[in-house]
């Protein structure tokens, strides 16, 4: 007999069994650069928050489930996440993306700027969770990048290149990485499983996606050890309206991306890294990590999921990293992603 306590607590926190933790010195990550990056990020975040100055109020209207609500929130500080917290716990848990004034897609932890009407999007949003799905795919790519940068031993340096525009229909999300000291590598089943497990483990730690619009110089400073990103930053800055580069941070991993991401990594449900393909590009040998995932709350039986995994094993035909003017950075009317 189950007790009808509405317990939404996490039952199991993932703790790696002591038997499987490597005692090798090879496994410890490079923490200096990461600390430096995060320091810069934190400082910029703080600076931007202080730049708001005097706190003014704004009216936010919410139409939807469970009830229509009008909120008075702080301009430049309150995020859609805060609005959701005022309305219902259910919204807090399941919402991944917000829609402002029916035109702009907004991250959950991005401060709102003026009076608006807000809608929350989740995995089962009606009539069409299209934007949520895209944001989710994009976030999965980013999380994959975070996982890859920590998964390898010390003698193999992963240099993250980028990930193409999310295409859910292709069947997999993608990250292109260069792995030094690994010219020829096909991952074994176990290695793929480890990557998948790492991804789920990272997701379960419930990291927020911190968004920050940053100047070109600061971005170059943050990515000084990543040769690919250093090249990309000036392009991105040029193509955006206000010459800012948009960075996202999960935990201590920072990456560049234009589009909206979901609010929190714990919306990741099932996840599998299905394949790693070797690409020959002008930058050398890059590895295309591919995976498939479903958000939390979407139910699918294991056979159907295995079909999705099988499809995701095939090489994703998204643009190769050396294609010039990669469509990831298509200029828009404003720096935010918007729908017609």
């Amino acid at each position, binding site marked *: 007999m189950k*007790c009808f306590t509405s*317990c939404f607590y996490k039952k199991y926190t993932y703790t790696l069994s002591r038997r499987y933790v490597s005692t090798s010195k090879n496994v410890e990550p490079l923490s200096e650069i990461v600390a430096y990056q995060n320091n810069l990020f934190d400082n910029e975040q703080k600076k931007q928050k202080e730049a708001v100055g005097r706190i003014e109020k704004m009216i936010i209207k919410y139409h*939807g*489930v*469970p009830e229509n609500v009008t909120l008075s929130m702080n301009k430049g500080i309150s995020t859609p996440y805060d609005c959701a917290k005022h309305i219902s716990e259910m919204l807090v848990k399941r919402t991944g993306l917000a829609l402002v004034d029916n035109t702009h897609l907004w991250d959950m932890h991005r401060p709102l700027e003026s009076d608006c009407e807000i809608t929350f999007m989740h995995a089962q949003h*009606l009539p*069409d969770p*299209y934007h949520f799905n895209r944001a989710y795919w994009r976030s999965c790519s980013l999380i994959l990048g975070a996982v890859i940068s920590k998964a390898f031993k010390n003698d193999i340096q992963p240099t993250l290149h980028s990930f193409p525009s999310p295409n859910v229909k292709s069947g997999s999300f993608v990250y292109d990485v260069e792995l030094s000291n690994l010219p020829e590598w096909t991952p074994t089943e176990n290695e793929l499983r480890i990557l998948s497990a790492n991804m789920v483990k990272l997701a379960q730690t419930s990291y927020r996606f911190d968004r920050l619009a940053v100047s070109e110089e600061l971005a170059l400073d943050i990515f000084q050890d990543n040769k690919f990103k250093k090249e990309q930053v000036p392009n991105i800055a040029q193509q955006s309206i206000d010459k800012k580069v948009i960075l996202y941070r999960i935990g201590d991993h920072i990456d560049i991306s234009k589009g909206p991401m979901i609010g929190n990594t714990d919306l990741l449900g099932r996840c599998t890294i299905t394949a790693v393909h070797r690409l020959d590009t002008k930058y050398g040998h890059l590895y295309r990590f591919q995976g498939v995932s479903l958000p939390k709350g979407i139910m699918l039986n294991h056979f159907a999921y295995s079909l999705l995994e099988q499809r995701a094993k095939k090489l994703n035909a998204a643009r190769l990293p050396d294609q010039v003017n990669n469509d990831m950075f298509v200029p828009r009317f404003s720096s935010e992603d918007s729908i017609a």
Partner: protein
Amino acid sequence: MKGLLTFKRIKNHLTFNFNAFCNVLFGQMPPPALSFANPVETLKPSSQHLIDVQQLFKNSILWAVPKHRRTIEKRLGRKFGYITEFYKMLMPRTDLFTCNHCGHYYQRRHLCPNCYKRVKDETTEFQEVIEKELGLDPIEQEVVVLYKGEKTKKPEEFWKGKRIVELKREKPVWFCRNLLQRTTIGNSDCKDVKPSELA
């Protein structure tokens, strides 16, 4: 005097022959308690002999005592319960979902309480009105309950053969009559697609 003697005898038998002692107790001799003839004797403080026997009764004969060690499996079973029968540990419920229509929680495979309450209130009203209207006459026609102004929307033939019961209220927003009914209206010719970036 007699009681004292009995006890002495019991004690003597106990020291030499346990079987004889038992015989004494349960065989011919009545229980020691009943053979007290002189109540005054009982009020005397018990002598050393008596204490000994009493102590023996207390310590040597063990009643209601575990015969075997309880295994760890049994102990854990009693402590935590059995998964297949009655588990005593608190387990998180994994069968609570959010209703997509009203946003409240519902149990898997059950109706959403919020949505159902709405329907239930409406239904009880309908049922009251119908019962009042039809009474005890033989029911020979299908009953249809209409809201204010719904009757005039459809032509007369539509209501032929049906018993109409009218409710003097506006139709609630959430009530959708055409869930399972087929219509003669075909698919729309409208070519607009919203939103514009449909998957």
